[in-house]
Structure formats: structure tokens, C-alpha cells
């Protein structure tokens, strides 16, 4: 979700195989650089493979360009990587959240599993509970929220949505990205 010169990204931390929970501390939100956060939902193996692939690509980018990648460019990179497997896709839904440019404009991007991008101004959702998330985010979202309020709204949205979704929950983590840095907090959710 986007706020006033800040973005927040939140996700649950359950790792399960269909209806069986295996682990409660899997992290699916990754820091690309100080301006970009990248979250993925979907098949765990593809999340790990793509995480390693993007880490490699970003390291190479930093060395060649001698600067950090901007969130918009990274989003396009993600889309290209996913479309390159158009007929044998990675089964993930990525979300990119970042602060773009000199004046730290919030940037949000969501793509589908084959890289079709959308750039909403307010919020993006993904995962098994995406319909619930969409509904509750639509209700609670306001424009130009400060970081503290943004954190509250994002947390409450995530908590409400995972309560309804059987496959989500078992702990959650919320990252708030401002120009001063990233604040990370863990929340307790329903464990069922």
C-alpha cells in the first residue's frame, strides 16, 4: 500500500503444502535495495529460484551500472523474466513496492504469473487471500497516509484477510519503507 512518500508491504509467513503446514517462519518479502521491496506469493520453489535469480541480476546491475536500480526498472525486469517463461511459467504472483525518484514518490506494481504489469496508485494484493485483501484494503485505504497510520492500516488489512483465508496466516511481517529506511514488525495472527 502507498502512503505519503512511503510504502508498506506485508505478508504472512506460513509455508504449507496444500492443507498441511510445514513451517511458520518463511519470508517471502525481500529487500532489493534501499528504495525497493519485492514480495512474492505462490509456489515456494519458484519463489526461492526467482529470489536467487534476481539477487544475481541485481548484483550484476550494481556492478555494471555503479548505481542502485530504480523500482520501476526492477518491475520491468521482473515482468521480462516472467514472460521469458511464457509457456512454462513460474507459478508466482509478485508485488514490487518502492520509492521512485528524487522526491520519493511511492511506486507500486503487481504482475501476474507471466508478467502482465499494473501500476495502481493505492494498493496491490496477491495470494490465496487476494479477494479478501482487495475488499478490506479498498475500505480502509486513504490517500496520503503518514508512515505510522500506513503501518496500522496495512496490518489491520492483512490480519482481517488472513483470518478469512484458510491457507494464510501463522504469523505475519510488515515492512514500512520511507526515505529514512525500512521498519520491520512482526504481528501475531490466527494460528489456524
Amino acid at each position, binding site marked *: 500500500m502507498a502512503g505519503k512518500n512511503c510504502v508498506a508491504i506485508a505478508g504472512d509467513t506460513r509455508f504449507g503444502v496444500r492443507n498441511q503446514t510445514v513451517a511458520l517462519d518463511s519470508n517471502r518479502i525481500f529487500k532489493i535495495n534501499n528504495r525497493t521491496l519485492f514480495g512474492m506469493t505462490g509456489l*515456494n520453489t519458484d519463489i*526461492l529460484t526467482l529470489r536467487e535469480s534476481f539477487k544475481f541480476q541485481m548484483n550484476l546491475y550494481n556492478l555494471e551500472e555503479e548505481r542502485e536500480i530504480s523500482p520501476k526498472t526492477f518491475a520491468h525486469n521482473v515482468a521480462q523474466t516472467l514472460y521469458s517463461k511464457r509457456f512454462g511459467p513460474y507459478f508466482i504472483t509478485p508485488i514490487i513496492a518502492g520509492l521512485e525518484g528524487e522526491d520519493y514518490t511511492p511506486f507500486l506494481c503487481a504482475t501476474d504469473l507471466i508478467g502482465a504489469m499494473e501500476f495502481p496508485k493505492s494498493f496491490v494484493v496477491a495470494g490465496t487471500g487476494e479477494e479478501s485483501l482487495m475488499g478490506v484494503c479498498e475500505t480502509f485505504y486513504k490517500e496520503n497516509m503518514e508512515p505510522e497510520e500506513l503501518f496500522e492500516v496495512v496490518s489491520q488489512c492483512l490480519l482481517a484477510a488472513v483470518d478469512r483465508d484458510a491457507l494464510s496466516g501463522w504469523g505475519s511481517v510488515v515492512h514500512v519503507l520511507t526515505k529514512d529506511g525500512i521498519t520491520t514488525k512482526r504481528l501475531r495472527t490466527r494460528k489456524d
Partner: protein
Amino acid sequence: MDSLVGFVGKNYVLMAGDTNAGRSIMRLKEDFDKLVPVDSHKILAKSGEIGDGNQFCNLIIRNVSLYRINNETELSTKSVAHYTRRQLATAIRKNPYSVNLLLGGYDKKDQKGSLYYLDYLGSSKKINYGAQGYAALFVGSILDRFWKEDLDFEDGLELMKKCLREVEKRLIIGTRCFLIKMINSDGIAVVEKVMINSKKKNEIEEEN
């Protein structure tokens, strides 16, 4: 059909697997060791297709060995887990290996044991306790309730037997015989080969 259970204790990792090898409804072998040593301080517990398990575990063991020969240093458990995961992830879309694994290892550098859950798709997760196969459905809740950080070896063994007792009692597919192995700073040791019969008064017999 295969049951694998593992958890991390105080400076050790305890792993157990049933010793049945079967195909469809038939039990081919009753003393099949599913906990293969990768090197002196790591065990790969395999479940799934027997052939795939053999081939894939051989691949991992030989490559870990090659790394040690080339670089004169042992790989950490984390590195072996990542390597194994990468092999499974590249194979899944080409020539899938139907093996689900538990990788347990003790690292002398950190003086800690670690356990990894790896499945045939290439998912990987570092866990404190876990199981593969049908056993996971029974044993998951027992471990949730009774596992604690830094369990002593005696308490750990008791907990493991509690889990295996449950698997023998409630899993409709007969698995009586289990092999328990431990990894600690001294290496891999076979703790016990247990035979569990929940109908008898003295449920657990040790077999040597």
C-alpha cells in the same frame, strides 16, 4: 508410505525413518536404510520412489565429495541444502525426481545442528522439527506440543519414540520397524533400531 521424522536438539540432530521398502501393495524389503550419510556430519533422509531416491542421493553425495576434494573443505549443511534444492528445482521441469528429503547436519563451525525440509519440487525450508510422508500428519502436532529448544539427548530420544509409537499405532500401512540416527560433533551414530508393537505390553523392543 515412507515416514521420516527429524528434529534438532542441544548440539545434535535426531532423525528416524521407517525401514520398509515397498512398491504398491508389496513390501519388498524390511531393513531398508533411508538415512544415507552425505559426509561425516550430514544425513539425507529420502522418501518417495526408491530408484529416484538412490540416483538423486548418489548425485548429491558424489558432488559434495567432489567439492571436498577440489576445495579441501567441507560444505556446511546450509550449502548442501541449497545445492540439493537447486538440483531439484532445475530437475522438476525437465526430468523430475520424485523424492522428498530431510537433510540433517551438524556444523562444527557454529556448533549447532540444523534440519532442512526439501521436497520434490525444490521447496526448501530450514526447520527445527518436521516430518515427511504420512507421518507428518500424525507427528506434526506431537512435535508442536512437546518439542523445545535445546532438548537433552534422553528427552529427545523419548520424544522421538513417542512420535514413532504414534506412527505405528495410527498409520494404517504397517510400519513396525524404525531406524533412529543421531548427528552430533562426533559424527553420525545409529542410536537404535526399534521395533514397535502397540498391541504388546512392552511396546518397544530394541533390536541390534
